[in-house]
């Protein structure tokens, strides 16, 4: 990739920044694996479709109209996804509640549109959207697995008999959500050697 080309934080090796931007919907949808998969699919499809359209149109949209135009495109796709999910996955939509609609103003999706799709062609935009969407889906599913198993003693909404006496309800709540997300972020940082990466940047 050319130096200076804007791309995803994920591809730049700083996924935790991306996770902080998307912490809201990660928290909201990681209480249940089904909700995590539903939100993951919604994020992936919204990013993918809006990236394709924005990367195709960014040259003809005047700079000062980009904010409303991009927001309308993202909101439009999120609305279409929401309508489709309401028809075919009503239980998942009920679990996600208002957080599915607020995806339209998510910093992750808008940042992807503004800083990646707006500066690159379709191929790079699609690649970034795919990687980011899959990354979020995996993180949300991992968080949901932990929160369901230890917090609610369930898997896929079904009770796990031997865990019923050992569940820690706080993990299923907001406090536990932040705790689990922080642990997952720490593990991701360790894997991606974030500190080493930052040290290198400082040296440069």
């Amino acid at each position, binding site marked *: 990739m050319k130096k200076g080309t804007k791309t995803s934080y994920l591809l730049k090796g700083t996924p935790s920044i991306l996770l902080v931007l998307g912490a809201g919907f990660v928290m909201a949808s990681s209480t249940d694996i089904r909700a995590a998969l539903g939100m993951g699919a919604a994020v992936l499809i919204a990013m993918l479709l809006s990236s394709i359209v924005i990367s195709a*149109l960014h040259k*003809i*949209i*005047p700079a*000062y*109209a980009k904010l*409303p*135009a991009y927001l*309308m*495109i993202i*909101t*439009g*796709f999120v*609305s*279409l996804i929401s*309508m*489709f999910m*309401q*028809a*075919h996955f*009503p239980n998942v939509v009920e679990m996600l509640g208002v957080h599915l609609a607020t995806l339209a103003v998510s910093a992750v999706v808008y940042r992807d549109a503004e800083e990646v799709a707006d500066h690159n062609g379709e191929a790079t935009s699609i690649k970034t959207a795919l990687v980011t969407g899959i990354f979020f889906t995996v993180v949300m599913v991992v968080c949901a697995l932990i929160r369901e198993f230890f917090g609610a003693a369930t898997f896929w909404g079904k009770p796990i008999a031997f865990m019923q006496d050992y569940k820690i309800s706080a993990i299923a709540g907001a406090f536990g959500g932040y705790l689990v997300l922080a642990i997952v972020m720490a593990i991701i940082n360790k894997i991606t050697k974030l500190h080493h990466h930052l040290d290198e940047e400082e040296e440069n």
Partner: protein
Amino acid sequence: MKLLKTFVILVLIVAIFGGAMFALNLYTGPIIAKNSAGAANDRLNSVMAGGAAYEDITATLSDLPATVTAVHKETSGLGYVIEATATSDYTGGAPMDILIGVDSTGVICGIQLVSHSESLIFGADYPSTYIGKDSALAGVELYAGSTFSSTAFKDSVSAALNALAANNLIAAGVKGDDQILTEMIPTVAPGFTKLLEETASGNIQKAFQAENGAGFAYIMTAGEKSYLAVVNAMGACKVYDTEGNDVTADNAALADEAKTDAAAKQAAYLDPFKSKIEKMMEGAADITPITLDTFNSVVSAASFTFEGATYYAFYSRSVGFHQMDIYFIIDANGAITKMDAKQFIFEEEYFMAFGGMDVTAYKDGFVGITGDTFTGEEVIIATATMTSNAVKQATEDTFDAFNALKGGAQ
């Protein structure tokens, strides 16, 4: 030109997405509507097995009680599902939400307590005791330990079924004399808490003792007729017929039989109460027991003299979180002179705020209050709603007893 281009682009985006949403809605709209109807049906089907579809007929019904929020008719003729609420006298806040399924013959086929905010609630199995009953609810008991919430629940279910019967949607259940008289007890003897069944003999068909010791209730027969006799802890008796008329004067023999049975079982409150009066008013003299024909929580009353003036003492056994023993001394003008209780708070670790309660100041707060100036605010103990309510009931019952005394009902 630049502005026009921007305008056209934004309008195009809106138009394209608007069109896409319109097209998608043609496909998803019917599916979403079907899902919504299915979800609503699932909820109603939880009390009406096999319900195919429902029609909301609430607006077509007349004189619905305030506790009935919606009535749904199962379109294939299986029956009706009623959405009702109930609010207990003690919690009094957010109501219980109840779903009642009634088949076409007027028999309850399913019932659920959907949500509640009661501090004490009946067991999960309690609602199922209503299944198979008609609007008479014959044989449905209140739930031991949560009498207030189960009373509110039962009253709400009864009102809902009676409303359907009044609108000629179902046949009304027929109550026997025995049930009519038993259901009359809370009305004629409101101070009798949870009724415990006792052994019966002679003309007494059923005997009940109030758990708080406030008295006894008897279902009695004389010839072909049935009567309700209530005897309070002071020994006063009243007899009622199935219409609710006071027929004590015409049934002296029944009253005597009831009083004899009650006297043999009644706990002796007078002697310990006399000691309590002497402790509360050191120097009290001429303590004379009074028999009142009130049937509230007052279980004993006495008059006495103190420093040349006449006073009246009342002992109430209202029920809060637990059984309470509350004492009032009232002067001849009807103002409280002293108030005391054996114990205010029974679970101090539960009622955290009690640690900061000044019991002496609380009791002194009652001094000087009369039946006319009592507002109910005086009884409030923070975080102890049930105890506060019990003190309120005891205070009101005491003023009622005092008024009965002054009205010559001795």
